């Protein structure tokens, strides 16, 4: 197990003059270890894409420091570019060219010889299940296929770090599943991935660690489990059949709740500290009040709830 830091960012700041082009960064810190997947999670306008573009040398920072594999992003751009792959928000492939022509071209631009570029293109097409559509122009590809081609193009020379910026935005569920399995495939190969997403389930599914971004600053960082444990109490969910019971339960459990009780239709969610005791006490209270719950569950908080706690604003799920 190596603990080598492949991405380091310290106090990175970026202000857009007009403020229209993108979200700025406001003292952004990040550390990513080799061979892990880190999810950069945040709502639209939090600065996710700005962070990725600065780390990938596409954008210059106003102040701060950032290193990729030990190379300074500002002063050693060429060295950095030799070690990264970038999958941007819109699939950056040439739509007129075929999948294979795209990969051969990007191989040549990565300074592979022609024969080697062709061989690598075939390997990648195979690996991302695109062999059958290799001779079709990319404009004929589905959204998921195009994103997979984009992933393949960024893996021509195995990069030390792969930036994947909102890989499934705008894809249908089928496309999302395709891209997810493609990303998992990469991770098996040991690639370090920095993934930005505004989807909590995506970060939960793919990332080893998550950094939550709000207004250009990381507001929380850790494994998905640790984040949930650290930043939110456990929840006890009750589902009842009668609307009247909802208000009744609210009053009953108020004393037990470690925070604000939330109601969503016939579901009452109670934040609790001591799981077992809470379960017993709630069950006793219900019995005393003669309420028969439809369902009663103890669970860890969802990332959505964690996010709400941290930022005071929700994330589109």
């Amino acid at each position: 197990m190596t603990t080598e830091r492949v991405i380091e960012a310290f106090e990175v700041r970026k202000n857009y003059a007009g403020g229209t082009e993108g979200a700025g960064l406001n003292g952004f810190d990040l550390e990513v270890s080799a061979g892990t997947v880190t999810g950069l999670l945040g709502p639209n306008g939090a600065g996710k894409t700005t962070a990725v573009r600065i780390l990938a040398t596409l954008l210059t920072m106003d102040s701060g420091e950032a290193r990729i594999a030990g190379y300074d992003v500002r002063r050693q751009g060429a060295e950095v570019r030799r070690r990264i792959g970038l999958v941007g928000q819109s699939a950056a492939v040439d739509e007129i060219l075929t999948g294979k022509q795209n990969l051969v071209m990007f191989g040549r631009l990565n300074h592979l010889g022609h024969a080697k570029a062709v061989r690598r293109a075939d390997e990648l097409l195979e690996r991302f299940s695109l062999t059958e559509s290799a001779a079709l122009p990319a404009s004929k590809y589905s959204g998921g296929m195009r994103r997979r081609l984009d992933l393949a193009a960024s893996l021509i020379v195995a990069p030390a770090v792969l930036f994947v910026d909102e890989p499934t935005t705008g894809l249908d569920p089928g496309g999302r599943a395709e891209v997810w399995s493609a990303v998992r495939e990469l991770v098996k190969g040991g690639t370090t991935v920095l993934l930005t997403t505004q989807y909590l389930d995506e970060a939960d599914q793919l990332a080893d660690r998550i950094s939550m971004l709000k207004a250009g600053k990381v507001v929380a960082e850790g494994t998905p489990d640790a984040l949930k444990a650290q930043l939110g109490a456990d929840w006890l969910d009750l589902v009842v059949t009668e609307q009247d019971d909802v208000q009744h339960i609210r009053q009953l459990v108020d004393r037990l709740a470690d925070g604000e009780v939330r109601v969503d239709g016939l579901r009452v969610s109670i934040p609790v500290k001591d799981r077992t005791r809470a379960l017993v006490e709630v069950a006793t209270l219900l019995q005393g009040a003669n309420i028969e719950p439809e369902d009663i569950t103890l669970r860890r908080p969802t990332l959505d709830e964690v996010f709400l706690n941290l930022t005071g604003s929700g994330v589109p799920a």
Partner: protein
Amino acid sequence: MTARLGWALADGWTITRRALLHWRMQPWPVIFGWFFPVLMLLMFGALLGGAMETPAGESYYELLVPGIFALAMLFGLEATMTAVTTDVAKGVTDRFRSLPMSSAAVVLGRCIADLLDSAVGLLVLSGAGLALGWRWHGSMLEALAAFGLLLLLRFALLWVGIFIGLAVKNAQSIMAVQVLIWPIGFLSSAFVATSTMPDWLGTIAQWNPLSAAATAARSLFGNPDPSAASWIGDHALEAAIIGPLLLTAIFLPLSAATFRRLSN
């Protein structure tokens, strides 16, 4: 240093080949681009040509063909602009910028591809001109010099196109430029003597780099030129060299600066 230059050339060639592959995958836009000036030639020559006066009563095509040559160079601007904007919008430019390739190569490849495109266009147009009765009366060398000057103008306009393409970033603005190209093209000696225009307009038209290219080409081909004597008309050859160099001197650094500003 030599290694870097070597890679820049190799990468530039890869980008040129990309454009050539585009021609093969989608030949119609390119072919249309080559034949559109032929259509202009027919429209102006066959439809309006009868009403046109030439200095010594020669066929109007003698005067018109070099004018359309120059106009075709101007129309090439659209192709450059559109290609640049599309790459920026689709994120292809970002991908190039995140690769360990030479950034000069992106532009070099575009240059070679567009000049090739225009060279073929001139060939097609010459063929059409010859079929309609246009001739060159000078030596082969002079004819080649004329084509060289036209491509020099195209080279200069390429930088204008790259600059606009990088600066505007969206397709609507490109449309506006496409419309503006027409008055710019007509405000020249490409079709008629500038002396037939109102004085002030005629003066602007004389100084249009397009006029210099058309007049210089006419003189090298030995074709009649309708321009009344004027200082700029008498120095058309020099103007056809200096004008494009000046445009390049302005727009090449502007393009480079805009390309770098993509990272701000």
